[in-house]
């Protein structure tokens, strides 16, 4: 599904990603953990195509296509979905209208006709229930005045609606209390399937109690320094990232 090879990227001349290799097969959930500033969110931004990142080396193949050649909107239309760490507010644009526009843009890209109003509403209702999203938020302006938890839940709801091949969750757990965290995680778990992959970026192991990954990767200073099964997350939680720093330094010597 997603193959990242030797990916280097910089922001304002400063190298942030220093050679990432990662393979996420179809249907798998991979977690990326790492200390602050290790490049976790940068990786998400580069994959989604944020303009201020420059890729200097390497390649990213998504479903057989060169992802880095595509505009951000085409990446989205191909099936890359980024659940933002800080979802933006857009006053005056209803959540529903926004989603309808997005869905129909993606459908048009695939050569499908726009959804009829009735079908769209049916789909909305279905997904809303699936991920336990508050119907009252549907007609409100996109994220405007939403609480932190509501914004994150809206991201998961959008993910359910747009049905991407790859969902990237960028620190979706940050700022969530335990109840909201559980709801968000349940939503993601319901969306897991054999043909959908996830890249879950998190600072804390807590989220991974609910969204159990197939693999855990540890990002440190722009590189993946360790990969392991889900238990690796527990080990990190217990020993902290300092333990890792020592290992990395040790290996480098």
């Amino acid at each position: 599904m997603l193959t990242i090879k030797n990916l280097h990227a910089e922001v304002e001349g400063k190298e942030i990603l220093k050679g990432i290799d990662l393979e996420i097969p179809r249907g798998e959930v991979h977690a990326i953990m790492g200390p602050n500033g290790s490049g976790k969110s940068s990786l998400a931004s580069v994959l989604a195509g944020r303009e201020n990142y420059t890729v200097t080396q390497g390649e990213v193949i998504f479903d057989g296509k060169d992802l880095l050649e595509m505009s951000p909107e085409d990446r989205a239309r191909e099936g890359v979905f980024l659940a933002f760490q800080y979802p933006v507010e857009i006053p005056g644009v209803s959540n529903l209208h926004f989603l309808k526009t997005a869905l129909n843009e993606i459908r048009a890209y695939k050569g499908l006709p726009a959804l009829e109003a009735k079908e769209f509403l049916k789909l909305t209702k279905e997904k809303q229930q699936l991920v336990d999203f508050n119907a009252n938020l549907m007609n409100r302006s996109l994220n405007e005045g939403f609480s932190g938890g509501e914004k994150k839940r809206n991201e998961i709801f959008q993910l359910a609606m747009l049905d991407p091949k790859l969902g990237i969750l960028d620190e979706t757990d940050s700022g969530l209390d335990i109840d909201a965290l559980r709801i968000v995680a349940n939503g993601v778990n319901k969306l897991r399937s054999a043909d959908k992959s996830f890249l879950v970026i998190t600072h804390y192991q807590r989220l991974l109690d609910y969204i159990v990954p197939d693999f855990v990767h540890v990002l440190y200073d722009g590189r993946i320094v360790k990969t392991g099964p889900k238990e690796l997350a527990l080990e990190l939680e217990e020993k902290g990232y300092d333990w890792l720093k020592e290992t990395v330094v040790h290996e480098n010597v």
Partner: protein
Amino acid sequence: MRNSNEIIDDIANKEYEFGFTTDIEMDIAPAGLNEDTIRFISAKKEEPEWLLEWRLKGYQAFKKMQMPGWQHFKLPEIDFQGVSYYAAPKKKKQLSSLDEVDPELLATFEKLGIPLNEQKALSGVAVDAVFDSVSVATTFKEKLGEMGVIFCSFGEAVKHHPDLVKKYLGSVVPHSDNIFAALNAAVFSDGSFVYIPKGVRCPMELSTYFRINAQNTGQFERTLIIADDESYVSYLEGCTAPMRDENQLHAAVVELVALDHAEIKYSTVQNWYPGDKEGKGGIYNFVTKRGICKGKSSKISWTQVETGSSITWKYPSVILQGDDAQGEFYSVAVTRNRQIADTGTKMHHIGRNTKSRIISKGISAGEGDNTYRGLVQVGPRAHNARNFTQCDSLLIGNRCGAHTFPYIESRNKSATVEHEATTSKIGEDQIFYLNQRGIDTEKAVALIVNGYAKEVLNQLPMEFAVEAQKLLSITLEGSVG
């Protein structure tokens, strides 16, 4: 990968959609402004003596007046003697029905999306089409006539309803109100006249479509709307002009009179030619619009979507004279490239319990400059007057400007006057967020801007709200960078 700036530059070069010209034989007065010009116009229109006198008074006032100096932009030199004050398509013969209108003119309006053939017209909308100085056709006149609604060109009103015209002409905007109003009084050519009789709710949207076509002319139309007791009317005006290198002056006057319990809703979708990217050409849109809520519990509501013109300079206002009267002003003004807008409103609270509401949304892009200027005035008799003003500015890019000049003068302690203002910028974050959901940059900007302007667009009659949304999107295409 192309970045969004490049895409934007591509679209920015898109041309003004309505910039074509119509090739038609015209009657054009020689350039210049003097008493003879005014007599010429008056004679062309076969006007009664009293109207000529009124025009001449306007001209005397104009001659004594100076150009204002308080506006927030550099007023360009205007050569009043270099303009022709009358341009009309040559009449082949006396017109008695639409079938006799020059096909070239019908085709022009059709191309502008304003079919004058009643079968093709939007149902529920009656149109008066004004081409340069004259009205070429008014649709659904007979149907409206059955209910006693008068909807005709100003020239016809002078001929057929002189008493009404005489009574109300200049009663809201006097001939000496300001220099452009005085000029208009002297040389006004045509425009629309509306009278809604007592107790009648006008069954159709009334609308006037203004088209400037001739070169080196100005357009000086005059609109007068009178809503008698307990009547209601919704009126809409639209405007376009060809692309020309030199600036053209549009100095119109609109007067609204609402009697007891009457309501007038006046909407404008202004898309005059804005000039090119370097600011060359375009219309100077210097217009005086004022309504009076003369009767008790009367209501006047102005809604404007201003996307065109090189300079837009106007303050649609309401004099709230009757007790319990209400005035509203909803505005979206867009400036991009080198466009300038200095617009807003004045609410004069005179009667008791009068209310006013002002919602202004300025959008500046490119090197556009957008100024909101508003006056809320509460007189000593206006007990319990209330005003709410919200004034928002949206900036796109970092070379544009937004300014706000709210004036409040209250002489009554029981009045409540509220003012809220915000300034925001379309952020790259917002655009990227929408991109990441599969929406391209162009659509993303349209979505954000329409969301921002929604409160105002919602005020437009339904038939036009969609058009206005599209217009906003087109106007701002390629403005983010």
